[in-house]
């Protein structure tokens, strides 16, 4: 895959246009002139346009991921804004939100503007998420107002769950004034203790300390109650347990400000896959039971979960090639995301394709307040062209991240991104 400037006039012709706003799929093409949408639908091919034949392919909005870790500043050996952008383009993503657990963390307006400046030249849109607390220590609130002015779109101490309920309450109250979501990695650190995988018969087998489901569900419950109390926007990241799903579902019926995401890996794997101490499956929150996995799929289908987010978390080889207790938490996920969720949700669980695409486009954009009607004339083109039916096997060579910590190598996926169009750039072979 290469990324280069789009031709001045390019026509994505003879495809199926999937519009996740209107919830329609219609045959046609999309004409992009000077990086902007010029026309959609039945289009005569202009003589001077470069034509991308989309026969049997779907053209839709570029995917949007609310949860990536691009490691810059501080761990550029794992990922940078540039290398992360390549991974995003490979996966069909044109817009991502970068978590603030960098070194130093994004806990000041200066740090936020560093990301804004450095990501300007990247081929995808990168929105910094600011830290909720100074140093992500869970105590003092950051300058959220100034950080929002610099471009922070949400606030989170992701990776470091906010333990103190009063800090979480104050953060939510403060955020109501700014109208931005708070994203709390929901985990009670005392209940989690030194748990490294789901507490289960599998953790018994492996002799590994377990992280119980209640460590997540009780914290999700607390956060939901606080969001209702404060009226703030709460976004629950990477939900992994059936009980958390039930609580979110219950709260959504009375509070429209709650949203939730799920990762491809929590939808694809259950904890049996860890039976041989596979460190690539060591993530936080942990891969849970089959019952949890099935409840996540059901929650996607009934709308309890709003969007797919990868939690793309690059780590070095040495961070993962070690004993399970010492291995880092997290996996990369941008490149494999679409093939995984298309397989799990559409092929295996008969979710309709439009619903899946809206969970990767309109819905995440709406949560953050981004423009989501991307087929409007004049809008800067953010598109993806994919083959909905291609079966393929995920390989190392499909990875464009600087890190390679993926558990999906050798897995058969369904649905494959063919071209990503973003910020005047596009991908090609």
């Amino acid at each position: 895959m290469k990324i280069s400037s789009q031709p001045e006039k390019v026509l994505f012709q003879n495809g199926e246009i999937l519009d996740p706003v209107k919830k329609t799929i219609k045959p046609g093409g999309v004409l992009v002139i000077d990086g902007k949408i010029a026309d959609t639908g039945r289009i005569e091919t202009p003589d001077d346009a470069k034509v991308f034949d989309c026969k049997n392919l779907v053209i839709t909005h570029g995917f949007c991921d609310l949860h990536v870790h691009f490691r810059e500043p501080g761990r550029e050996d794992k990922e940078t804004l540039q290398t992360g952008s390549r991974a995003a383009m490979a996966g069909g993503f044109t817009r991502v939100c970068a978590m603030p657990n960098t070194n130093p963390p994004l806990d000041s307006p200066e740090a936020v503007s560093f990301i804004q400046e450095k990501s300007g030249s990247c081929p995808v849109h990168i929105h910094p998420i600011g830290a909720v607390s100074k140093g992500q220590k869970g105590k003092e609130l950051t300058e959220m107002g100034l950080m929002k002015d610099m471009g922070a779109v949400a606030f989170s101490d992701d990776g470091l769950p906010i333990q103190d309920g009063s800090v979480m309450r104050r953060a939510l109250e403060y955020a109501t004034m700014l109208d931005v979501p708070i994203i709390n990695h929901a985990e009670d650190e005392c209940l989690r203790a030194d748990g490294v995988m789901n507490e289960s018969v599998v953790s018994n087998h492996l002799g590994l300390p377990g992280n119980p489901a209640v460590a997540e569900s009780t914290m999700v419950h607390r956060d939901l109650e606080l969001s209702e109390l404060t009226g703030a926007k709460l976004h629950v990241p990477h939900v992994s347990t059936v009980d958390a799903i039930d609580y979110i579902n219950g709260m959504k019926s009375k509070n429209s400000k709650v949203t939730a995401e799920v990762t491809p890996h929590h939808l694809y794997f259950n904890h049996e896959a860890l039976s041989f101490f596979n460190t690539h499956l060591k993530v936080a929150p942990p891969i849970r039971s089959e019952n949890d996995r099935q409840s996540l799929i059901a929650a996607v289908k009934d709308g309890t979960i709003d969007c797919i987010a990868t939690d793309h978390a690059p780590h070095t080889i040495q961070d993962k090639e070690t004993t399970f207790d010492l291995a880092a938490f997290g996996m990369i996920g941008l490149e494999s995301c679409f093939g995984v969720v298309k397989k799990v949700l559409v092929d295996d669980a008969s979710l309709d394709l439009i619903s899946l695409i809206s969970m990767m486009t309109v819905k995440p954009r709406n949560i953050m307040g981004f423009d989501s009607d991307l087929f409007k004339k004049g809008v800067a083109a953010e598109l993806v062209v994919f083959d909905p039916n291609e079966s393929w096997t995920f390989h190392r060579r499909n990875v464009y991240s600087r890190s390679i910590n993926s558990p999906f190598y050798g897995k058969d996926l369904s649905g494959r991104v063919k071209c990503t169009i973003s910020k005047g750039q596009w991908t090609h072979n």
Partner: protein
Amino acid sequence: MLQQKHLLGLEGYPQEDIQAIIDTAFNFREVLDRPIKKVPSLQGITIVNLFFENSTRTRISFELAQKRLSADTVNFSASSSSLKKGESFKDTVQNIEAMKIDAVVMRHPAPGAPRHLTEFIDAVVINAGDGTHEHPTQAILDMMTLYEKFGKIKGLKIGIIGDISHSRVALSNIYGLISMGAEVILCGPAHLIPPYITDLGVKINYNLDEVLEWADALNVLRVQNERMGVGLIPSTREYRALFGITEERLEKHAKEIVIMHPGPMNRGVEIDSAVADSDQAIILDQVLNGVASRMAILYLLLGGKYEDKDIK
């Protein structure tokens, strides 16, 4: 010969291979009773004892087993501090393998470390305890000792007493005993028995007297000092009152129950001296059988040629 190249744990380990190890161990046990306690079975074989954690007893038992089989042995003790400094496990073990060795006996604080080791080296790997995961050679010597005492394992009723959650001895014993057809009841503080453990085919009973009434033999686990008084075990006297194997408690039961302990013992906590030193305790037999069963494991894994004249 055994079906698996390594001995990483007893989870899923073939029953007939456990039996083969125990049978061979009894042959070696006879060797240990001879005036000259040495056979040439593993001459020319080099074994590294790689201990990332202190365990004098296990290391000496393995070392003795290796010497009795005439193997060449090297001891390598990595201080846990160098591990914490981030010295790569992979670098350490690949360095050792580069020196052309045939087997590694490894003790490591991390569950799964021996399996991880097999990804980096070609030598045979024997797990001498991996954190809270498994300690298969301990379970085999425990089963050999039960075999010696009862003449069988199938149908035996075994109580495992103590902190199950943090015990590799318990987990390997559970796998081994269940596979060999014994019945197992776990007895200990409820929060130190992991949830879902009954999925492994064991039962739980928190009442030690009921377990004593039921069992043929008890495997009494060591109470780790570091769990004492940090909120996990309220106090020594509380533990002794609920789960201590005391003379008074045993006297209440009419039958003679067999007592095992993997050592080292906390006398006066999980077991009283009067019990530990009594005839019903077979703790010292366990130690001797430890050498014999480790000889059998090394011998069977390292392809020593079975020569009757050597060991019979």
